[in-house]
């Protein structure tokens, strides 16, 4: 039991901060509506759902594409980029290539090759503009540096709006990769803390070593907490109401020094509540009622309660037999308790110490 308490304390110290982070970030993710976080608050929904009359412009056939592709293809999709037809080719290695469906290039050796899509900064700006619903001014497109989460050839266009919208458009596909803004950054940041995912950029990686360690420690922390709670409840602590009020008499060498009337809780709390009401400190405790310091020991002058694990751990057999018990570990009862001269002398003394 004593060990459980030590374990619970040290685990609390070790993982307490992460537990708080889990709870706080979880609560924020729960309470902040997803609309507020939305990265696409200024995003125009893609117009690709509307058919574009492009049939006349298609001069490159599927068979041309199959014939001229460098790598074998598994999938070909007809798309439009800035009202021009294009093919999205999926190679067997999973990579995607975008080529125009209305143009073939001819090399110097008079060979036909597929014309890869490569948009100008101006065209990229145009695509970003079309994907943007707000009316703020868009800055010129900028190339990304050292960013491995976006496909190669992705440019960023920032909008001067209230959430600092950032639009990512790829030069080689003409697609809007993402809209982001400072609110979606905030959400990513919360997710990063919640998932303990401090390395990756997307904030949703799941199986981190440290997550696993702290999750296991948390489980032990919770089990030890439940173990302690069940023990305390079993001992009669925390039950708020005791039906019949009891009287506790405090003695110092056969002389009655205080009479306390109490309804619930443990001996120590009631004694000190009484003392505090008289501007005194009462009984010293260093562990705050945890049964660890042994400072709150009192002598039951008649019929002591049976000794609990904490009594046995802290007090000698002789003292236990005489009726000494830790007052923090025993629920109130009609009792006559003896205090040591030292405890009585510190009864008031201690007050000034606390005030310092």
């Amino acid at each position, binding site marked *: 039991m004593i060990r459980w308490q030590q374990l619970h304390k040290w685990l609390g110290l070790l993982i307490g901060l992460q537990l*708080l982070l889990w709870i706080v970030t979880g609560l924020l993710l729960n309470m902040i509506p997803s609309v507020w976080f939305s990265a696409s608050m200024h995003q125009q929904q893609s117009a690709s759902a509307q058919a574009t009359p492009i049939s006349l412009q298609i001069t490159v056939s599927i068979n041309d594409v199959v014939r001229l592709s460098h790598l074998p293809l598994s999938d070909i999709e007809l798309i439009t980029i800035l009202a021009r037809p294009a093919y999205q080719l999926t190679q067997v290695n999973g990579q995607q290539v975008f080529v125009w469906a209305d143009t073939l290039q001819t090399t110097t050796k008079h060979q036909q090759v597929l014309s890869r899509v490569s948009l100008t900064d101006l065209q990229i700006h145009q695509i970003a503009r079309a994907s943007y619903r707000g009316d703020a001014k868009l800055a010129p497109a900028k190339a990304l540096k050292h960013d491995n989460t976006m496909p190669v050839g992705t440019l960023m266009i920032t909008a001067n709006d209230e959430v600092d919208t950032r639009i990512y458009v790829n030069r080689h596909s003409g697609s809007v990769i993402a809209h982001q803004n400072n609110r979606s950054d905030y959400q990513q940041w919360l997710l990063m803390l919640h998932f303990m995912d401090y390395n990756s950029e997307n904030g949703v990686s799941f199986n981190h070593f440290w997550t696993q360690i702290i999750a296991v420690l948390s489980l032990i922390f919770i089990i030890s907490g439940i173990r302690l709670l069940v023990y305390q409840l079993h001992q009669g602590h925390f039950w708020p109401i005791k039906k019949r009020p009891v009287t506790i008499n405090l003695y110092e060498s056969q002389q009655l020094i205080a009479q306390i009337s109490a309804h619930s809780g443990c001996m120590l709390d009631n004694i000190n509540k009484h003392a505090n009401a008289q501007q005194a400190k009462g009984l010293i405790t260093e562990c705050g009622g945890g049964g660890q310091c042994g400072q709150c020991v009192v002598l039951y002058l008649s019929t002591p309660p049976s000794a609990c694990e904490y009594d046995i751990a802290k007090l000698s057999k002789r003292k236990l037999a005489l009726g000494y018990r830790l007052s923090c570990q025993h629920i109130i009862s009609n009792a006559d308790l003896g205090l040591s001269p030292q405890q009585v002398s510190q009864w008031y003394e201690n007050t000034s110490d606390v005030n310092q």
Partner: protein
Amino acid sequence: MVLMDIDFIHGDTLTATPNIVTLKPVSYPITTLLQHYPDANKIRLTQRQGQAFYQFSSQSQLIILNADTGLPLAPLTEQQAKHIAVSAYTGNGTVSSAHLFEQDAPSELNPKWLPVWQINFADIKQSSLYVSADTGEIVTKRHVYWRLFDVMWMLHIMDYDTRDNIHNNLLTLMASLSLLTALFGTMLLWFRLSHNKKVTR
């Protein structure tokens, strides 16, 4: 659950990457398709079991055409669906049952994949592969650990109805109480440690 590899949960180990058959020239050109279906969009050419086909939407319907004849391709038969599932499956169970879902998806499946064949395997993981009846693609995989994960997720976000709404009041209430509990715990820990400090002084 963090001890379980998320890729395993997603069922990535249930199937091997299929040997992708490369596209070959087709006899029905895309321009002819567009003459017959002027409003066609999201036109995609791919193949199932060696037969290239066009997949597109026209008048908000998904249409599948044989890319050589231009005729509609019949939906997958049970035999074909089983064949696709078995050739991708890496486990050692045999097919125990197959169901075609056309209107209502089972709760573990996103309805956007309909119509779909559910091919169940008699293995320890109770694996199910979902094969699109239109395209023959394996759209998703489920097994007993995924289903367990789904229940754990439900418990995690305390949405016992739809299992996907993290913005529910019960969770707000419990998380707030947890926060209070944790703060009180922090206070208790602080008292305990600062008392100890006083003794050593």
